């Protein structure tokens, strides 16, 4: 694998390899907690924190860890950061912690994290590992934010908790129920793929530039 620039490792997580829309990883929190923008952003940030910390530690301890026990070792490292994130949320953001409920501890099994550690962080130095994790985290957070935004506007008639429409608006309740998550995700993926298709040539050009 040819070494690529730090900026490339960051940028690829946003669109080209977006963990939600392209890799379709970590669907459980994506579908479950995106009933509002705040929940989506909160979940995205918590996941990004775990992703970046675990990627850094993972790439640093890689030479010391025998490959037979790497999965349990990384699982312990991830679980530690998840518990820290959970405690911090409970101490400083109690309403958000309440809203995300059991989905914070479940970040442990979010396959975006184990996936990036196995596929990237442990095969690269700490610099690219953190850069990749930041990009994937940002891509994940952005996806959850867009999903949460669409569902909140349509399902609750609000954005960031601020009422948008008057009394006359009847919220589309289905949008904040599980079915609404699938509907929104499907529509967003279709849009995403259409855009990607259209800008394919542009992306390839940008890529070859970054690789140069």
């Amino acid at each position: 694998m040819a070494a690529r620039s730090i900026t490339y490792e960051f940028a690829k997580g946003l669109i080209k390899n977006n963990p939600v829309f392209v890799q379709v990883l970590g669907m459980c929190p994506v579908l479950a907690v995106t009933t509002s923008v705040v929940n989506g952003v909160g979940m995205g940030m918590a996941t990004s924190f775990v992703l970046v910390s675990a990627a850094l530690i993972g790439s640093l301890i890689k030479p010391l860890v025998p490959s037979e026990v790497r999965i349990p070792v990384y699982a312990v490292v991830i679980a530690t950061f998840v518990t820290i994130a959970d405690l911090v949320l409970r101490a400083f953001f109690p309403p958000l912690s309440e809203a995300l409920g059991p989905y914070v501890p479940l970040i442990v099994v979010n396959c975006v994290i184990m996936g990036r550690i196995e596929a990237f962080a442990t095969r690269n130095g700490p610099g690219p590992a953190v850069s990749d994790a930041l990009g994937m985290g940002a891509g994940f957070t952005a996806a959850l934010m867009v999903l949460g935004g669409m569902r909140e506007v349509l399902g609750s008639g609000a954005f960031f908790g601020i009422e948008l429409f008057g009394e006359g608006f009847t919220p589309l309740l289905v949008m904040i129920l599980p079915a609404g998550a699938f509907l929104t995700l499907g529509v967003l993926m279709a849009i995403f793929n259409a855009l990607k298709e259209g800008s394919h040539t542009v992306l390839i050009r940008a890529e070859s530039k970054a690789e140069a």
Partner: protein
Amino acid sequence: MRRMIIVLTLVTVLSGLVLAATFASLSPRIELNRERALQASLAALFSDVDEPQFEQLEIEEMDIYRGEDAEGRLIGYAVAVTASGYNGPISMLLGLTPDLQQIEGLQVVENRETPGLGARITEEQFREQFIGLDPMQSITTIRHVEPDPAANEVQAISGATISSEAVVDAINRRAEQAIDAIRDAEDR
């Protein structure tokens, strides 16, 4: 083989230490948040009283709070009640008048009900139906028709019968027992 054991042991011990330190430094804050949420719910039950003070009664297996106003006059009691809702436990506070003859109010402290449906048990429109009902009689949930407060009736939220009935069932199960316990405790 030996290296595997050493690495895994080291990693788990280090993680344990980091977590212990984080927990020790954050737990006072977490405890404080929980206490604040409880105090806010207690105060909301007696919202017409300025600066109410609450003291937990020493009753086994039940969390019951005795409320007083700033001058030390008894304003009522609050009983912690947990219902099994649609998505998990619903924790509530049931307010009782000082004479224990009527329900003073209902507050939902924590719930995981479906937003827009079951979670509407937190809305005033549902909760205020309980005010003035007789806690010693069983409360019944009705649908479609207007509830009769004199007959201890409340109307279920449409589309959220399970959550509504869970709340009512939990109150029915706990209220009489709690009132007996309060009478016992206050007699002492």
